[in-house]
């Protein structure tokens, strides 16, 4: 680890002032950043601890929830309003990492965690365009079983590792930010970016930007929602494929639906094509399969991850089957 100074920010203004410095980094729980620093993938010269800021969950006037960026993952998952009104979010969080890590990790930090592509962490032995732009990518021709099938670029095939973010993009959450240009709000789906020609940029945030909160809009039909994660072992592993979904039925037909996929792309993947295919249609096995195919027809699997196309299809069908049974 390269040396760094550590400051605990007393308020947002202080955090922004300190965070504007050249190589400063905001510190949440540290569950990813400390590891990245130990591997020298990240080399900040100052850590600005923001866990003393914004750690409450409040009802909004519109009937949603405003979640402070410093709220711990466990605290969000166990919050009564989240368990009852947004069960896909509670389940997504509980599927991620381990209880110890969820007790440490913050909401803001979860959004900004880096990919777990092993080539990204292998500073001594591997080329990685995300770690060292222009160096090349050893994953594209390497062991890429865990990598992206949607939205990748010739420069990067990494996936975004978060489970929580998959639920948040399905919910059309928004991200509250403060930075040099003052306060602003981003739709959640616009926070993370596809690699294109700049895989080193995971998000659209500018230097010094601080995530202060995540806002959930009211979505009454999200009470019928879930998150299913498929991985190499039953627990404590990153997703091969995951599905967050919420479903609203009207009689025999699908009135509204939200779907997002995890483990398949450089960002949490909102499945707009699958949603469009399902809306106002029947809740049948054939319709579920057609929706999955509509979304995954653009998939470009690599040597080792071809299975993800069928796995995502089957997982989506299974989730929709469960939800349509529960929603009826």
């Amino acid at each position: 680890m390269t040396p760094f100074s550590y400051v605990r920010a007393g308020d947002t203004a202080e955090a922004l002032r300190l965070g504007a410095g050249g190589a400063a980094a905001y510190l949440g729980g540290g569950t990813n950043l400390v590891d990245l620093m130990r591997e020298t993938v990240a080399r900040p010269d100052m850590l600005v601890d923001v866990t003393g800021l914004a750690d409450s969950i409040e009802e909004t006037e519109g009937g949603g929830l405003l979640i402070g960026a410093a709220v711990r993952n466990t605290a969000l998952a166990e919050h009564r309003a989240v368990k009852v009104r947004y069960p896909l979010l509670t389940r997504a969080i509980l599927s991620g990492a381990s209880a110890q890590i969820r007790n440490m990790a913050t909401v803001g930090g979860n959004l900004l965690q880096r990919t777990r592509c092993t080539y990204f962490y292998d500073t001594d032995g591997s080329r990685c365009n995300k770690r060292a732009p222009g160096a090349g990518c050893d994953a594209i021709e390497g062991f890429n079983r865990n990598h992206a099938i949607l939205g990748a670029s010739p420069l990067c095939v990494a996936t975004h590792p978060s489970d929580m973010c998959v639920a948040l993009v399905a919910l059309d959450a928004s991200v509250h930010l403060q930075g040099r240009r003052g306060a602003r709000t981003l739709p959640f789906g616009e926070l993370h970016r596809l690699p294109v020609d700049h895989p080193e940029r995971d998000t659209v945030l500018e230097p010094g930007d601080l995530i202060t909160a995540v806002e959930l809009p009211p979505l009454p039909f999200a009470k019928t929602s879930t998150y299913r994660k498929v991985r190499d072992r039953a627990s404590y592993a990153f997703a091969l494929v995951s599905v967050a979904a919420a479903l609203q039925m009207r009689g025999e037909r699908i009135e509204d639906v939200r779907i997002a996929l995890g483990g398949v792309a450089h960002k949490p993947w909102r499945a707009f094509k699958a949603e469009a295919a399902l809306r106002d249609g029947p809740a049948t096995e054939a319709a579920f399969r057609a929706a999955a195919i509509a979304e995954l027809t653009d998939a470009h699997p690599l040597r080792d991850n071809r299975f993800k196309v069928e796995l995502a299809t089957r997982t989506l069908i299974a989730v929709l089957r469960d939800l349509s049974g529960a929603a009826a």
Partner: protein
Amino acid sequence: MSLHINGSTVSLPLDTRVSLLDFVRDHLQLYGTKKGCNQGACGACTVLVDGERILSCLALAVQYEGRSITTIEGLANGSAPHPLQQAFIDHDGFQCGYCTPGQICSAIGMATEAKRGVPSYVSDDLAADVILTRDELRERMSGNLCRCGAHNGIIDAIREIMAAETLE
């Protein structure tokens, strides 16, 4: 700049890079907490902070200024083992013992979470009171790996001590 470990107040290290794990082992000579993977994958370094279980390898000591840390050394009642330590012995909850301090600290934190009503990924009803079935315990303890394969004994030990309070 200090924190509390097992009831004693200690000064924080001057080097900000020192992890909480290295601090308790190398600076305080509390060798009960183990370094397994040092990257958050095994759970051997689990300690309790104000009663909550965390991974000390992914924690910088400076982050925990003013907090109360409990390691395995802080659990025993004088010369008598903590009831959960005795249960691990009774149920063969270990072979080599390397993961055991982390397993025991984790189980104590887990029981607090369950009493508070924190659900798990395998809970059918997220809002219901927690019932610590075998499947629930396996999921809730999945952050602690045992390469000897003593998981069944570990679950038996935890059930004997903890499940009494949250009966099936």
